[in-house]
């Protein structure tokens, strides 16, 4: 939740009055997404990359890979490290410096989707068991915050992973090959405001909402992660409704953009 985004009372009233009429500030339906576009392989130096736009929100995700040591408790598995940078170019409310809790939460929810869906076959990233494995760095760069960064960043992460080539040749480990991806997790986020659920919130809608719920679903329709955020409450029925719509939305996005 962009706690730091301030919104004027008059705009808040405007959004509220629209909502009473069943409308949203940009004319969308409550469960409708803004236009999504995904451009892959935009950064040649990265092993994989994707520029995702949801409406005017823009997120660039780059994947870098390098050999390194595995964790002692998973000696034959590769390592995923996810970072998010809320660079000050993206919003008047972002500041330079180490990531704040909003950035940390964003990175951890993106990471949760990739990790819990088992999208990346970590065992296939083992080079020498216990000694050397591939480390996958997922770096999320927010370029323009017009709301719903979690969905955009998650979409960017999986889109970038889908186009990632393991740079084996550069490290003398044989020929480059395509990173095997086994699932396509999609994060779908809704906010709750005055008992109305709105999907893909814009930055003003985020500013008026108390509560946000992200549902990450996998290709088989199961749920592999969720995160409630913001200092508000949700009724169980609202949670279940968000899940149902989220899974539908996710299916549409997955089919349209990511499935070959």
């Amino acid at each position, binding site marked *: 939740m962009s706690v730091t985004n301030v919104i004027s009372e008059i705009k808040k009233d405007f959004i509220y009055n629209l909502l009473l009429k069943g409308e949203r500030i940009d004319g969308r339906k409550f469960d409708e997404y803004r236009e999504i576009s995904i451009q892959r392989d935009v950064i040649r130096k990265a092993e994989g990359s994707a520029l995702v736009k949801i409406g005017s929100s823009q997120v660039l995700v780059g994947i870098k890979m390098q050999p390194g040591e595995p964790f002692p408790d998973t000696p034959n598995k590769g390592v995923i490290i996810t970072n998010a940078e809320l660079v000050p170019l993206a919003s008047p409310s972002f500041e330079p410096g180490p990531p704040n*809790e909003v950035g*940390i*939460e964003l*990175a*951890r929810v993106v990471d*949760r989707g990739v*990790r*819990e869906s088992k999208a990346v076959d970590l065992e296939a990233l083992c080079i020498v068991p216990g000694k050397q494995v591939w480390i996958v760095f997922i770096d999320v760069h927010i370029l323009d915050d017009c709301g719903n960064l979690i969905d955009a960043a998650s979409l960017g992460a999986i889109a970038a992973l889908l186009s990632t080539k393991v740079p084996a040749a550069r490290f003398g480990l044989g020929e480059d090959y395509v990173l095997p991806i086994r699932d396509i997790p999609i994060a779908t986020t809704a906010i709750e405001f005055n008992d109305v659920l709105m999907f893909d919130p814009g930055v003003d809608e985020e500013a008026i909402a*108390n509560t946000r*719920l992200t549902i990450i679903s*996998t290709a088989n*329709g*199961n*749920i*592999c*992660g*969720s*995160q*409630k*955020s*913001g*200092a*508000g*409450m*949700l*009724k*169980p029925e609202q*949670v*279940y409704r968000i*899940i*149902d719509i989220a*899974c539908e939305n996710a299916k549409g996005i997955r089919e349209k953009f990511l499935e070959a």
Partner: protein
Amino acid sequence: MDETDISFFKDGLRLDGRRADQLRPVKIEVGVLARADGSCYIEMGGNKVIAAVYGPREVHPRHLQEATRAIVRYRYNMASFSVEDRKRPGPDRRSQELSKVSREALEPVILTSFFPRSVIDVFIEVLQADAGTRTAGINAAAVALADAGIPMKSMISSCAAGKVADTIVLDPMKEEDNFGQADLPIAMTPSGDITLLQMDGDLTRDEFQRAVEMAMKGARNIYELQRAALVKKYSQMVEQPVRGDVHVCD
């Protein structure tokens, strides 16, 4: 699923002898710290967590203060010796995320507008961890807030459900959390409004709902224990108003 089927259940019971819908033993003590305005010590299974509340008090640094309400700060901290492999002291990304969602789990019930320009600080120290430290921390924090006399709309109670060997279980312990298929912590008010909801793992839509329902049942049980602990302390105070070790008497 795989080898996990054999090890998680024996004769229909879990590794520690619990049924699938049973909580671990819970112990709650109110007012355990002399300097804090409110405090609580909780044991949930192998978790040992202590919570302190300071405030409402002046905000430092000043620029954080809000003109119309109190701000709430929540610091979840794990002792380096609380886990098997020593945890490096200080905040990491996990603890910062947990602090954020835990704060947001409590804020909806705190009447912050009563205390403009002030701060309510909640400090959580995890002394021993055994899966479920965030829920234990929230439970302790809610009791400590009440102990500090902070006006609240209601209590907050927190509990997790998980999935092991394709079965939904309440309040997963360490083994079930580490090797299980899903973990779903919630926090809620006694009337069933959800203020925290996280999930990782793999659940179908139906399992998700059953896990939420089971965790809510667990949280209701914990609410009774929180309430009993508060009643116990404050009913004792009426009988024995001048006990040296009860700090709120001074």
